[in-house]
């Protein structure tokens, strides 16, 4: 039988602004590529079926569940992960808002949650509370009860609004 691991595909992918040429397995998910090949372990694996949002990254401007996308599908694409949000090693405004508002407990859902919130704010800089709840409804958190996460996104949006003035 042909060894599955010999079934590989060459791809070019830009992750957090860094181009990579990789030879990935045909069955390899984008999540596995990010975590195992690039050692960017900030992106988390939980459900493995696109339901919990822990593995959320931005692929070509869209928030996606990286556990249900094959690495090969990202060929030629641009990926943004949680590690790409920091500004010179310091937390960006959204990340800081999560800290200040108490939106982080165990932290395992946090990277995915922040990426989903980042996507939301990129596309809707001044969301209503309802829109925030809708935008984050695909990301499960078992620690916080979400209230402080919603507050953090509101605070980040407000801070960005202030900065625009």
């Amino acid at each position: 039988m042909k060894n599955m691991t010999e079934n590989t595909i060459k791809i070019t992918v830009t992750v957090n602004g860094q181009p990579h040429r990789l030879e990935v397995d045909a069955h390899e998910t984008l999540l596995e590529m990010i975590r195992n090949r690039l050692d960017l372990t900030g992106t988390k694996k939980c459900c493995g079926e696109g339901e919990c949002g822990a593995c959320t990254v931005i692929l070509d401007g869209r928030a996606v569940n990286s556990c249900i996308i094959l690495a090969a599908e990202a060929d030629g694409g641009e990926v943004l992960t949680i590690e790409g949000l920091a500004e010179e090693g310091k937390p960006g405004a959204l990340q800081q808002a999560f800290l200040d508002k108490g939106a982080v407990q165990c932290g395992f859902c946090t990277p995915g949650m922040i990426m989903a919130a980042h996507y939301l704010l990129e596309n809707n800089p001044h969301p209503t509370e309802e829109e925030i709840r809708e935008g984050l409804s695909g990301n499960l958190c078992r620690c916080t009860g979400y209230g402080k996460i919603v507050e953090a996104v509101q605070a980040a949006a407000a801070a960005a609004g202030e900065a625009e003035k």
Partner: protein
Amino acid sequence: MKEPIIGRSINRVGGLPRVLGTQVYVADVKLPNMLHAKLVHLDCTHARIRGIDVSEALKVEGVRAVLTAEDLPKPVPRFGPAYQDRPLLAVGTTQFQGEPVAIVAAESEHAAAVGASRVKVDYEELPAICSVAQALDPAAELVQDPELRADGPFKNTNVMDEWIFGWGDVDSCRAEEVIEENYVFPIVTQFAIEPFTFLAEPTMDGITVYSAIQIPYGLQRTIAAVLNLPLSRVRIIAPDPGGAFGGKQHPKFEPLLAYIALHLGRPLRLELTLEESFQAVRRASAEVRVRSGFRSDGTLVFQDIESNYLIGAYADIAGRVVSKASYVAAGPYRVPNVRIVARAIFSHTTPSTAFRGFGAPQENWAVESQLDAIALKLGMDRIAIRLKNLPKKGEVFMPEDPPADGDWAEALRRAAEAVGWGTPLPKGRGRGIAMGLKAGPTTAASYSIVRLHLDGSVTVYSGTSDMGQGARTVFTQIISEELGIPADRIVVTMGDTGAVPFDLQTSASRSTVVMGSAIVKACDDIKRQLKDLAAECYGVRAEAIQVSPGAVHLPEGDRSFLELLKDRFGRVKGEVIGVGSARYEYLKGHPLGGQPAFYEVVAVGAEVEVDRETGETGVHKLVVVGDVGKAINPQHVSMQDEGAAIQALGHSLMEHYVMDSSGRVLNLGALDYRIPTTKDVPERFVSIHIENADGPGPYGAKGVAEGGILATAPAIGGAVEEAIGVRIRDLPLTPERIWSALNTRKERG
């Protein structure tokens, strides 16, 4: 004056790496030359294994080993926190869905998975026991081999154990009214967002095991016993768990992994899927019958409570869950006559284990719902009946235990006020209110080491596990207060038995109280030593020296800690090492082996709206009032309240395992097992802290991490009843149940 650090909501210590994505969880640990493991299990609960053919699996490229119980020492090693009943791999039969029959070790996760899919198991599915009624049927098969159990009256039954508690005389006391009802609490699962991952690595000294375990020293004892190694040769590295909720208290597959890693001489990693994690841990379901006697003015005369908990195929910690929760089942009330009978009943299901609330949510659901039923029968207000029976602070309400340690009536009044009790409600809405009580830790042993470095910064070593509750933050605040050192100069080291001193466990909302006290004592030790060092260094009598946070006060003037360390240690340098401990000893003769260090008490208010067409419940407002003693970090306390309450919202409205007739769980995983999302949570959540500095912890703190989960279900249940006029006694209150209740009533009506 500077704002005090105690009572201030500083940001989470350890929060930064969590928002940057640089926090290292156990799944992020990679070891050189490691193998990957995959478990083989059957698509059924209870089966007789006739044979296992691993030959095809061994042919898969990259597979290095496939082991079954046949390859393990005989008898196959067993382990468990109560007694040693759980085998490393299934022996002869599988006892629950997900119990592994083999394990594959391979060079990659993929090869391990392919290998596992090629293991051929010849098995015969057997009838499974999956309910209390099935287990208690006199003709029922015994789930557990009696040989594994200690001698006792239940050895040859499916009852793991039975507890009888109480006081007064339920049978001969006189009540004007009596009601009796049955309540059901479902099987739910912890669903930490971090699924289980374990690694084991043979080392020069013995073995190192990586697990996001809440009790590193408990895992160390288990591994040492299974491998027959001294404790010193077993090192547990426990990265901060990505959520635990009790599910990560006790060992699961670490002993198996450790055995095989040693056997193969290579590091081995096992990552469970979420579905496998659902099959590893869950909460015990409970059927609770409550017979209550009371006077027409609402005074409780007796509570007669019988609770049958359905535990799994192995004991895990379920016996302690059942006994500790049922002991306080009568709740935070003055009840002169109480009889409690509680049973832990084996079944062919996932072993039930600790889950936030530790059995108390099951009892609280029943007893608080019953108080509503009494109020309804008497035409009394639901607040009034509770106020009537709540003890005053300092009043004994359980004869063998400490008196009420807080102003619980105040908590109830504040919850009522915050939820708008008594104000008009729009149509379709209802309000509910409930109290919750859980016994705090009864025994404890926490040790802490605090090192004051030459530059005045501090490293503290603590065996507590920070699983999101914020232990690092609280400990940092305590040290900052005690030693006058800024929080950003304090590092809390946890999760490595090779570095931190012994801690009994992270459980029962104990760490602020118990480990916090140990840390205060370690700081006191440092201050004592600094006094002696100052006496030596400056030639002053020790009695003439005072030490306050950050400075020593000499007759001739003050020296900062930094100056003293420099003056005393000079070129040769050095540091000051403080040691502290806090213990609650085992109390022989007490039903729980010790009085609770504190009571975790809450009042919860809820306002809901029920859609009569669909049966769906929306929660408008949820209020949690905790009697917390002292909120060292108020934001963190609110975070615990909110998180616990929303976890409870899950078992109140949506969460439960759905099983087929042979016990297969049909809703494993995030797609089919619904937990609350941003769209399910209340429009408004309110967290209120009653602070009277009356707890046993530093600054009068009590534990706070479980309160919110204790009374949310009965508060919501009461609110739903007010909204629709029907009481539903089985959780969760799904749209189907509510719709059926409404329509059954219509037919009757």
